[in-house]
């Protein structure tokens, strides 16, 4: 009894502390606020949600059964199905779901101020993202580790299955394009960054050869070697930057770099996995985990002040980084840190094959996403510790604030975010860059933020090194996503084309490999090209498209989950996925509506196309702009069509799910639940633990 009172009072204290921290963040106006409040609020909110909401879902809604044998136990083959310790599964799962998305999204959304993004990251994660990951993991575990697409087909029917497949392929293409754009913008006219990122390719190959031929399977030795080489490459980039002849080899404008990234993507997709993809994946995982831990320690140690306002005037839709009002665009911009459809692909398929007990689902599904949301909060801190003027100078495209430094600082200062040319030059010099103006895409400003945090915590003298380390850190796992995504896109395409001509479906037939890899690379390469030639910086076009598609994938996963809940006669509790689903449908539909119909040229695709077409027809454009105008007009219309297609796909699945639910509730036949039969676990561990 005493224990219960003690534990209850601890949780009351945690809840009060979280509420106080959140209230402090929300009500603070105009004064710098200590970043520790963000950390405290996030930890308390996640802890309370995990202890109560997640536990309630596990016990009452999903009715998790620790005595039931998992697919890993029943189908154990020592390879992909292996009962694994829960901490190890947690590590694998987190490493797979944490990519560059939660770092870039909050950085861009900081244009609205720190408050909207922070609240959405916390609330969206505990009520939406964590629930999605957890229920998907649970349903896939009960279905022998089936993928989301297979579950959609089994539980909702053919339409749901096809829609999930098409949505996955398209989001992959947009995702790779936008991430490619982030890397290109980080390397643009920066020999140091470009040479360091280029060096990661031979380094990954050396590690690949080491792990395959010299010391087969010694993953840790190989990775350690790789990480040391990567750190040397960052330092060597600084030396190279001061060699007049060499530096020109790596000094390129955006378009050249975009072509290089496209060529690299194609090469990476057709090379064997052991040479580039696998070793790079090891390296990026180690570098990522190390950096995230380092950043958390530095923030706690240093307790930097957040200088960004709680809310900026850009909530009205006039923001320089991307156009669009707070609603719905903050929810679209921060996809991965709050709720990400992509996680449903990991939570179904890969992770369930390792679970040794259903009891671990709460920790891995809900807890893994909570940790990811925590990473997003740290990215938000790194973006908002910068002076707001500096933040906007780095992230505003030249098309909005002007090409000249003097014009840009005047414009940004006129918004009420004072910044000077001298300040920016000094900062660029400290970071070892020629200029930091208009370095859009989020990566450079995040790197400046991280460098200033690391620099204050571990020594100011190495700011330039920290900056380029941060750029390398972002680039290495963006390139990993690019390789892996291209390959996955290829498999899906081969799978689809195999229905037309079986030979094309053979994943090892080289002509088919070349053809389908080329198609996938051409698709994302085209969108990357669109982004690079866009005068307003492609982030304004591509990031919302990516956010919408990622949230739509999340909506598909929640549709599958809601359908299964209703079919399992749990209508009473179907709101746990139904509510986030309704919210996602609202924000994606209204964002898509705005992107298509808004008369504002910075928001509406069609408005931008018509505006440019009008200018072209009246001869108001200078010759060099007139030459590229037809392409830009076509691109804007293509983006509008694609957005419309995404939304139609979403509504198709939602209505199909509602139809299935209505049929079930009226006692009419529906596709049966595809749950694997109940077998009692034989694993001793399950009984001894806890």
């Amino acid at each position, binding site marked *: 009894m005493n224990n219960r009172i003690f534990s209850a009072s601890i949780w009351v204290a945690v809840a009060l502390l979280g509420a106080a921290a959140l209230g402090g963040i929300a009500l603070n106006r105009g004064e710098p606020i200590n970043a520790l409040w963000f950390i405290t609020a996030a930890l308390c909110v996640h802890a309370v949600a995990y202890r109560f909401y997640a536990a309630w879902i596990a016990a009452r809604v999903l009715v998790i059964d620790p005595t039931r044998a998992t697919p890993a136990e029943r189908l154990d083959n020592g390879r992909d199905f292996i009962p694994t310790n829960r901490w190890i599964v947690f590590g694998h799962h987190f490493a797979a779901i944490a990519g560059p998305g939660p770092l870039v999204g909050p950085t861009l959304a900081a244009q609205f101020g720190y408050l909207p993004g922070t609240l959405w990251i916390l609330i969206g994660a505990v009520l939406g993202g964590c629930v999605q990951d957890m229920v998907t993991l649970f349903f896939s575990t009960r279905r022998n580790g089936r993928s989301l697409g297979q579950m959609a087909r089994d539980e909702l029917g053919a339409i749901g299955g096809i829609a999930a497949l098409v949505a996955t392929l398209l989001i992959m293409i947009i995702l790779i394009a936008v991430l490619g754009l982030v890397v290109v913008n980080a390397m643009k006219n920066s020999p140091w960054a470009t040479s360091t990122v280029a060096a990661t390719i031979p380094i990954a190959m050396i590690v690949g050869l080491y792990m395959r031929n010299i010391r087969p399977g010694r993953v840790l030795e190989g990775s350690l070697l790789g990480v040391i080489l990567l750190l040397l490459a960052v330092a060597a980039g600084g030396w190279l930057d001061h060699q007049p002849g060499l530096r020109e080899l790596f000094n390129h404008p955006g378009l050249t770099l975009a072509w290089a990234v496209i060529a690299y993507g194609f090469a990476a997709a057709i090379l064997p996995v052991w040479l580039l993809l696998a070793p790079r*994946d090891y390296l990026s995982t180690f570098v990522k985990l190390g950096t995230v831990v380092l950043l958390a320690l530095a923030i706690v140690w240093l307790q930097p002040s957040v200088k960004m306002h709680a809310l900026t005037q850009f909530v009205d839709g006039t923001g320089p980084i991307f156009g669009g009002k707070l609603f719905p665009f903050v929810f679209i911009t921060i996809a991965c840190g709050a709720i990400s459809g992509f996680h449903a692909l990991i939570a179904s398929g890969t992770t369930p094959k390792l679970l040794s007990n259903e009891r671990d689902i709460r920790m891995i599904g809900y807890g893994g996403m909570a940790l990811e949301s925590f990473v997003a909060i740290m990215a938000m801190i790194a973006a908002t510790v910068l002076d707001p003027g500096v933040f906007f100078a780095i992230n505003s495209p030249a098309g909005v604030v002007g090409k000249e430094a003097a014009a840009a600082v005047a414009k940004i200062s006129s918004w009420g975010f004072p910044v000077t040319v001298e300040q920016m030059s000094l900062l660029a010099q400290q970071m070892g860059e020629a200029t930091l103006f208009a370095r859009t895409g989020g990566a450079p400003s995040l790197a400046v933020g991280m460098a200033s945090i690391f620099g204050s915590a571990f020594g100011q003298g190495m700011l330039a090194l920290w900056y380029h380390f941060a750029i390398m850190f972002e680039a290495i796992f963006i390139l990993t996503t690019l390789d892996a995504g291209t390959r996955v896109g290829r498999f899906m395409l081969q799978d689809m084309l195999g229905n037309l001509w079986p030979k094309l479906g053979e994943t090892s037939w080289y002509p088919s490999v070349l053809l389908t890899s080329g198609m996938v690379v051409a698709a994302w390469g085209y969108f990357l090209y669109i982004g690079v030639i866009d005068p307003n910086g492609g982030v304004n076009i591509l990031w919302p498209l990516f956010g919408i598609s990622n949230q739509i994938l999340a909506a598909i996963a929640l549709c599958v989950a809601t359908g299964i809940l209703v079919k399992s006669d749990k209508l009473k509790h179907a709101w746990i996925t139904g509510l986030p689903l309704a919210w996602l449908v609202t924000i994606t539909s209204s964002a898509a509506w705005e992107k298509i119909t808004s008369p504002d040229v910075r928001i509406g695709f069609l408005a931008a196309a018509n505006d440019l077409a009008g200018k072209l027809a009246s001869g108001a454009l200078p010759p060099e702009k007139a030459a590229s105008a037809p392409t830009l007009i076509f691109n804007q219309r293509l983006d509008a069509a694609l957005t419309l297609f995404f939304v139609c796909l979403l509504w198709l699945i939602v209505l199909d799910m509602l139809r299935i639910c209505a049929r079930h509730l009226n006692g009419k036949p529906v596709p049966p639940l595809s749950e694997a039969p109940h077998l009692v676990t034989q694993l001793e561990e399950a009984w001894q633990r806890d």
Partner: protein
Amino acid sequence: MATRLKTWLRRCWQAVRQLSGDDAYERYLAHYTACHADTAPLSRKEFFRHEQQQKWGEIRRCC
């Protein structure tokens, strides 16, 4: 005290090896001897080749 620290360190090291897949071959051998003792297992090199091919053939990376 010293032995407890030693056990603890060893456990951490094992977790790191398992997380990174460094001990995948040893785990495979253990599984193989337990379940398919009648045929010879793959060599370390062959196993690692198959493992990599299969591991990166699906969605493993997120945004």
